[in-house]
């Protein structure tokens, strides 16, 4: 059960890491692209930046929906 949650977590983590990494690399090596305004007069810097924040929320909601809820309150005693 726990490993299932951890696996889902890893997959979603990799997805976000690629999105975030793309943003960072784009900023570092092609900052001129961030000035382009593809949609409604908004530039890529704002669209991508807001996208990363909203994306984080969406991925975390997906994670919350997919995860199992192990009954874990009884395990805590082991570590005292």
């Amino acid at each position, binding site marked *: 059960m726990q490993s299932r949650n951890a696996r889902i977590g890893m997959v979603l983590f990799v997805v976000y890491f690629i999105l*975030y990494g793309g*943003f960072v690399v784009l*900023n570092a090596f092609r900052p001129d692209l961030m000035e382009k305004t593809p949609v409604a007069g908004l530039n890529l810097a704002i669209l991508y930046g807001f996208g990363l924040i909203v994306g984080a929320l969406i991925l975390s909601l997906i994670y*919350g929906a997919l995860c199992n809820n*192990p*009954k874990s309150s009884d395990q805590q005693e082991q570590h005292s």
Partner: protein
Amino acid sequence: MIYERSWEAVAFFAVFVGFTLGLSFWLGGKAKSSAGYFAAHGQIPWFVNGIAFAGDYLSAASFLGICGMIAFYGYDGFLYSIGYLAGWIVALFVVAEPMKRLGRFTFADALDAKFNSRGIKLAAGISTLAVSLFYLIPQMVGAGVLVQPLLGLDHWMGVVMVGAVVIMIVVTAGMVSTTWVQFLKGSLLVFFSAILTWMILDRGFTVEEGGNDGHKFRTLLVVSAAIAPEAVGTIADEFDVIPPDDVWKATKQPFVRLKERKSGRTTVWHVQDSDKDGQVSLKETQTVTKSKDGKTLVNGEPRGTKKGEPELFTVGYVSRLPDGKSSTGSLTLASFFSTLQDSEVVLWREEKVAESDGQITTVYYQKPTPGAQILRPGEHPIFKGIRSDRWFDRIDFISLMLALFCGTASLPHILIRYYTVKDESSARKSTIVGIASIGFFYVLTLYMGLGAMTSGALDVTDNNMAAPLLAKSMNTWLFAAISAIAFTTVLGTVSGLILASAGAVTHDLLGSAFGFQMNDDEKVRIAKLSSVGVGAIAIILGIVFRDMNVSFLVGWAFSVAASANLPSLVMILFWNGVTRQGVISAIIVGMVSSLSWVLLSGETYAKVYGLNAADSVLPFSQPGLITIPLGFLTLIVVSLATRTDTNDRNIPA
């Protein structure tokens, strides 16, 4: 600017502090045991814990620092928002549930769950203290900076006040009261930020020639010969040109000093647009001159102490809107940006001039900036590197963004919050609530920052005050509320940090590493004593570092936390081969290497030692890109070298 004590703000402060302390004393009875003191008995509801995450995490650096940076430089401050939020993805997907499963009071517990080693407790305890102290200093200094203009108190009084209130919160009920204070602060901060954003959109943009104090900045059109170095000219029979000495000839920006005939005062003007048929325009600047005998001149006159006397003018205005409009009316979430994109805003930059007679003049000059440039990354000195030709400057940017990404999930005061809920699913749910509220707030930072940039209320000398001054431009009560919330912001974060440090001292260092035998009552007593101790140290540091620009210490804290803590935290979860020696050496190597890197970096050379940044031996300033992988590498190599069969037990992962 002259700040007058605002009685509304005093009232709000008093209500907030009184309510918070009352709550703490009321909750005090619930935290008698060490489980209560350190972890609130694991009984905080997940939703409350999630908002408390926001209260814990959204420090003064987030609120005041990011808004101020956006207000002065545009988009760049938002890069911090993005990085700070992205870190929560690591916290949720990788760290949250195992952290809850393995630990009890401190994050050292989780690292040590498998080994029961004094060495790990010692190393992790020290790294907790180091990170928490780095984080504490800017919070305490921020408290002083905030209280000074709002309540008319001295800096040290502000620091002592915050220190005293926080110590009382932490000592009365430990994690229980800390959590509720953070919950309160988190909700208020997000709620009022939303109101502020709504008001910014409702107000829209208006073209102005100066700030909201009514002063219109003057422009003089002159022939360029009149201000040539050798000229002894007069301008419009009003000004005499002061011939520049060597110092004024050597300034980076072209300045001209004029003596006003009527008043006899000296003002400094910035030469712009020098290509129009031999004509140039001189734009009025603002100056602050500190003479050797400690006097301060503002725009050539002794600085006043009351309203109406000489002071710096407020700034922050739109100089041109699209299609020649003079005001936009209310805007939508998207048209706010698309309008600004095609407008022009007057930003202000500064240059320090050390004059030959020993006085130092800081000149604040206008920099009309197209909106398209404001809304792109790379204007602030920290992020300018992405437009540089040097490859290492780009690496520096990547390194910073990596440290922000990895740092959040390694901050001890955030991690201990996982022990206040009852189980792993609550840990997960509260992180999701945390991400939602923190993310929402960070989206608002861009609106608030740009709103402040165009509010007409900015103080050129102090970008930390951008958000409160923005609120002031709306109305006084909102200003009072936002200031009081900024103050509670400091309270919430500082109490979390002190609690994390006290946990490390009591539980990891004294209890485990040095093997003091304590019963539960003694543990709580020692924890309270160490809270007072850490609080006292924080007060002293807050006073000692008052004149230093300390905002970058938060960046240090992120880099050190990510380098020292993250490798062990992650590898213990995903690799069975980790050994005790591996964890200890990874923490030490990560901590020492990132700290040394920071201390030897060009940024520290320039900002702390006052040396030339280029003299630094390191190619770039941000350590993360090197020291985080170094931590992982150390852990793997040492673990492989010290691996024995007894270490080869399965851990739950």
